[in-house]
């Protein structure tokens, strides 16, 4: 009788905190839920809407008609959009290559700066993000326009006599794009460069490698993961960018991002805009997958 009383413990009330304390699986689910919710609401649902939209028809007054329709996709094969697409790819790649070439020395300098100065330098790189992106691009208009800051400065230094007429040209778009995406290239590069132990470079020197050879054979391959991450972080948003070409490119420079934006906001042809988005997404995905398949994520070096 007594043993039974002892053996039968009082039923405890369900307690959420107890569940979390004792059940590791519940812990995992609890911790991942906010991220999953976020992804579901802001990525999965909008994506589904876009996919569905791209197969619907445009209504007479700019609305949507729930009628299945493939012409949105066939219209994309118009050479006009083909040209825009190729131009966008070119701008995306150009931006990425320039960011890589200018970002690498910067990241290298950053990774080798004295530790005390490093946080200040990193802060300076991130400082522009404190101001709204569109305002910063407007500021570039002031810099690039004829008789703007750049012209005045160059003429004052007697480097040029005539105004450069940079604004509303592909060059202006490239300048704006590189400006915008450079930090996204620098930060991953910095992270992977900073991880390279000095003893590895000493070992290379010890084995007879002069500094430039040590760089090519040790530093460069070990910074590969950063180069890959930086490239992906730059090329994907660069392909869909529309603010920079809108503000700095004028009517002459149209990227696929502008086409999509115009379909949604100006032409009010949402289904066609959705189809163009799908095409852009597909191309970016295929390119990224191909790239990472070829180059890998460099995960074996991240361990």
């Amino acid at each position, binding site marked *: 009788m007594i043993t039974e009383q002892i053996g039968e413990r009082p039923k405890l009330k369900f307690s959420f905190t107890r569940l979390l304390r004792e059940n590791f699986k519940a812990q995992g689910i609890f911790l991942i839920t906010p991220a999953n919710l976020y992804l579901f609401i802001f990525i999965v649902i909008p994506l589904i809407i876009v996919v569905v939209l791209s197969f619907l028809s445009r209504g007479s007054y700019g609305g949507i008609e729930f009628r299945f329709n493939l012409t949105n996709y066939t219209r994309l094969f118009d050479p006009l959009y083909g040209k825009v697409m190729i131009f966008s790819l070119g701008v995306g790649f150009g931006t990425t290559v320039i960011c890589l070439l200018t970002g690498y020395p910067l990241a290298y300098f950053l990774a080798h700066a004295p530790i005390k100065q490093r946080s200040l330098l990193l802060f300076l790189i991130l400082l522009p993000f404190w101001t709204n992106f569109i305002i910063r691009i407007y500021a570039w208009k002031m810099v690039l326009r004829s008789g703007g800051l750049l012209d005045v400065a160059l003429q004052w230094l007697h480097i040029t006599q005539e105004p450069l007429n940079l604004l509303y040209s592909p060059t202006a778009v490239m300048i704006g794009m590189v400006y915008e995406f450079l930090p996204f290239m620098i930060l991953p590069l910095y992270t992977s460069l900073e991880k390279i*132990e000095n*003893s*590895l470079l*000493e*070992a*290379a*020197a*010890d*084995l*007879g*490698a*002069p500094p430039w*050879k040590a760089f090519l*054979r*040790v530093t460069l*391959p*070990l910074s*590969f993961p950063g180069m890959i991450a930086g490239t992906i972080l730059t090329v994907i948003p660069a392909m869909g960018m529309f603010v920079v070409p809108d503000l700095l490119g004028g009517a002459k420079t149209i990227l696929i991002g502008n086409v999509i934006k115009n379909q949604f906001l100006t032409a009010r042809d949402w289904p066609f805009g959705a189809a163009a988005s799908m095409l852009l997404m597909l191309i970016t995905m295929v390119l990224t997958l191909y790239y990472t398949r070829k180059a890998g994520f460099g995960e*074996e*070096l991240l*361990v």
Partner: protein
Amino acid sequence: MMQDLAVEFHEIVKVFPTPEGGHVRAVDNVSLEIKNGEFFSLLGPSGCGKTTSLRLMAGFEWPTRGEVVINGEVMGRKPPFLRPVNTVFQNYALFQHMTVFQNVAFGLEMEKVSQTEINRRVNEALEMVKLPGMGRRKPKQLSGGQQQRIALARALVKRPEVLLLDEPLGALDLKLRKEMQLELKALQEQVGITFIYVTHDQEEALTMSNRIAVMSKGKALQIGSSVEIYERPNCRFVADFIGETNFLSGVVKNIDKNLVTVQIANPETQVVGIGIGNLTIGQTVAVSIRPEKVRLVDADGKDPLAPEGGENHLNGRVTATAYIGSDTRVVIEVGSGMRMKVWEQNAVSTLDPEMYYSVGDAVIILFPYENTFVMPEDTA
């Protein structure tokens, strides 16, 4: 041309700035002469300047003052990639993005050796460190001991005049470390290259080295063979750092040629020993007595083995004993709070507990004058 001396330090000083804005003398006026083909160790506690000394030889640091000479050539500010030395790093510093073969081949590629020659020499080196057929693996796939061997092969494949080793066995477990000690020593004799070996492990240094420099606070206190630095330490720091010893403090009472009489305060007695360095009467000194160079007799017994050269006597009482097989380690209180370690060899095999010392036994500690060393108290 083969020089007689592999590496020389001429009054080397290396000063580093500290983060607080001051500076520290990591190496303080050190002169060394390391002979060709020698296994030479730099031994000392962390921060003594031994690794900095090695880095000065490799060329990773340049001396603030003085000259590093390798094979008769003054190094000056010669960068590491032009020096005829190679280094085995403490953390191995293997290139993780290359295979084992590529790691070992790296140094030869820098010399622009032909591919067939590279293949031959890399395989030879991998065989020498007993890892043939591992060439295709990545360093991460190997155990710590194997990585250590790859680091060794990578340096040796270059056939350097001098091999610098910076605590190469520090990360290995004790058993593997003992194995590698003997292997390294055998390898050094086989290839005949000068090895300069940095370690804080005195036993490691004693086992492997032809000569040892004992370092402390940037200075090389004593340079000599294993036997010399253990049997004739030239200062208190060396006597204390190498092996175990007992110290008695006292004041010099009398000096007769090399024999010094010291008045010990605790216990109140006099001992005689061999003087080290310049001692003067009245100087405060430390007397060093190694625990295994001492005999014990029962306080009421007779001693049949009195040596000719004279012997010190100390009365005491056993406060602890530990039987460890070959020896019995006995702690004896000789004055108030003053204890000495004595290692008694168990030369006779017996189960009779009467034959071993036990706590409370009154004993006399006997140590010959020639096993007693008197040295200045404050040299280190």
